[in-house]
């Protein structure tokens, strides 16, 4: 009997990046995993109204091997790459165990790293005997044997081994929310923290939905406006490209005609973590009103992880059907 070669196995020396990316889409309990030769794709969804996915490129791993499943006979088409569902929260918990002791883990960017690491050091009571100081790092090993098998995670770290086998489930029908990339009504790129701030401000009125309004821009109409109605009043955050600042919030804007759509506010809240971790976001509306938020997350320069690598987290949100929000805003902006 030939040794069972796992269909998929990968090794990562730090799960920090993976944890960060997966956290961005962790608003749902279960995630759909698709393995391919290029990397892993995780996606989550909430009903059919919001969907998020992140692609973990194989460059994020120290080693990555994937053996495509072989067709039953040479006449058949190669079977689909494996996809299955796992419990995302369990996966995050598991990875969390590993990265807690990972001293290079730090959520601050830039030159703060060393200080944060030093502080973690001091406060955690670890000193010269840590992995990092001794030059020994842990190792995290993922493997998957094929349909029905579990997704196994082995973590080795200075004598402590953690093993976790996550049950894989058959996935329900997989249908992405359609987004018509070729027929956009609005496209803008802005810095993610402004979007985060806007959503946080709107959250303070406890709204049920948020309306996105975009226009080519004029004296009275902002280029992009996010507004919400709550019990105590309304709030609106307006962005315009007509500013004297050198770094406008809207770095680029494509908007041929006025358009607006509303989305359930819970969907925006689900994306807040992604907004907080990302550097930039590309906000697009297609002709049907589906909102696509693509967040660019810069992964920190690590020793063995892809230096200067970036990853993308995508959100797709289906608009609310009734256009009350749009009318409300249209009325308000013309009355000024």
């Amino acid at each position, binding site marked *: 009997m030939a040794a069972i070669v796992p269909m998929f196995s990968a090794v990562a020396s730090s799960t920090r990046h993976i944890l960060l990316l997966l956290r961005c889409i962790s608003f749902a309990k279960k995630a759909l995993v698709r393995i391919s030769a290029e990397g892993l794709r995780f996606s989550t969804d909430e009903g059919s109204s919001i969907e998020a996915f992140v692609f973990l490129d194989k460059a994020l791993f120290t080693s990555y091997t994937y053996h495509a499943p072989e067709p039953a006979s040479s006449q058949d088409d190669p079977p689909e790459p494996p996809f299955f569902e796992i419990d995302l929260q369990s996966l995050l918990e598991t990875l969390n165990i590993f990265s807690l002791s990972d001293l290079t883990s730090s959520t601050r960017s830039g030159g703060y790293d060393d200080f944060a690491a030093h502080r973690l050091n001091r406060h955690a009571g670890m000193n010269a005997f840590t992995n990092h100081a001794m030059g020994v790092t842990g190792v995290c090993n993922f493997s998957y044997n094929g349909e029905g098998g579990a997704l196994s995670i082995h973590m080795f770290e200075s004598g402590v081994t953690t093993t976790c086998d996550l049950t894989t489930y058959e996935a329900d029908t997989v249908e992405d929310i359609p987004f018509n990339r070729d027929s956009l009504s609005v496209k803008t790129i802005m810095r993610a*923290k*402004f979007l985060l*701030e*806007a959503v946080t*401000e709107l959250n*303070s*009125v406890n709204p049920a939905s948020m309306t996105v309004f975009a226009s080519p821009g004029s004296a009275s109409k*902002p280029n992009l406006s996010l507004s919400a109605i709550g019990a*105590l*009043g*309304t*709030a*609106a*955050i*307006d*962005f*315009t*490209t*007509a*500013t004297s*600042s050198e*770094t*406008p*919030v*809207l770095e680029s804007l494509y908007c041929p005609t006025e358009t607006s759509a509303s989305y359930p506010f819970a969907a925006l809240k689900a994306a807040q973590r992604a907004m907080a971790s990302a550097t930039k976001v590309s906000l697009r509306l297609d002709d049907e009103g589906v909102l696509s938020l693509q967040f660019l997350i810069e992964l920190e320069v690590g020793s063995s992880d892809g230096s200067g690598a970036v990853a993308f987290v995508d959100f797709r949100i289906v608009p609310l059907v009734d256009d009350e929000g749009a009318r409300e805003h249209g009325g*308000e902006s013309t*009355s000024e």
Partner: protein
Amino acid sequence: MAVLSFSLSPDATSRIYELLVCLAKFGESVSIEARNEKLTITALNLSRTAYASFALDAKTFFIDYDFTASSSAKGGDRFTCQLLNKALQSVFKGRSNDARGRETAIERCDVSIQDQPDKTECRLIVKMLCKHGMTKTYRLTYESVEVMHALFDRTAASQGWRISSRVLREYIEFFGNKTEQLDLLAQDGKAIFTSFTEKIQDGKEVLKQPLETAIAIHTEDFEDFHMQDQMHIVISVKDFKAIVTHAETLRGSMSAYFSFPTRPLQFTYQNFGMHCEFTLMTTGDLRGASSTPNPKFISNRSSSRQPSVAPPPPLNRTASEMPPPARPSFSKPLSSQSQRPSFKAQPSVTESDPDPESLFMPGGEEDQTWDPPNYNNDDGEEMLGWDANNEHPSESFHPTFRDSGTAAPPPQQQQERPAADESQEGLEPTQRLSQVSAQTFHFDAQS
């Protein structure tokens, strides 16, 4: 055209947030009154025992201030409304750490009231203009109500002190969290602030007796100090902490004006075009203060300023007017003292075994003048702590919360019209005649 519109600088915006945080400790809603020369934001607590007001000067606090009095409105020279404090706070929040140079720091804040009959919605509109082309607009609903102000007669408040708010702010950290009352006392050249709560006993079980903390500050540390010796004035600790915390943000010195226990007390301070006033109800032993014929004052004022006003006789109040604070049972801060029958008729102060809970130091022979008040006549009154001698039952107003001009009985104080500028102008000429005659009678008797 808006009835009211004004613009704020980033600093002013963060000051508005700080004052909202302070007002939140008094009540759930804030009332806004706009006049030509100033904007006043006030709050009144539920039990009507504390009133806080911030008057923002039109010329110095704002970048622009424009108020168009509409003659058709009732009370044409002002505009009043009421909002939930939380709603306003969430609008102004997060402005205070602009010092870090955040990218989304606001450059200006424009506020206007949209109150036209032809528009379907009346709103308070707050627009924050931020850098890099971002604008935040909030439209809040408000309620048009008449604002009720507390009146304070500063000419009658002859005693008081003034001290740097920073010093006070450092000391209030020591007051225990669970304490409810604060006792102010002047003694031996020191001002003693004691935070305490009445001990609640259920038979043998002590239900509540949190830590009592006493802080003594030398009168020389006060910029100005004038208070009757051994007179206890008691106010709420929470109110005091809220006031001092806010006073410190304005970095000036804080003044207190008061006369006697159970008369209102006022704290004021101002800076940066903001004038802050807090009028609080006080409790304490009035008889103790009034029974001494020649009250001794501890003061660092020059002697020419010693007033010759004698303490007024115990005032009349109906309990419905000023509901008692949470603890119904004290006239002195020490419940234990009132329960000691051996102490009641004693003329001299010397005690063989000093009560360990006593705030009074055991005195020597020369302290006989400062005997504790004679309890003989007052059995049964201590449980309530008010003056139950309702000598003038017809008098149904508490002088602090006065209405002006209307003869409505107290329960209808809801819709009072505020008088013109409160404490600056002395006695309001709108006292009821029965009040005036009653009081002048007493004053004549003394002088």
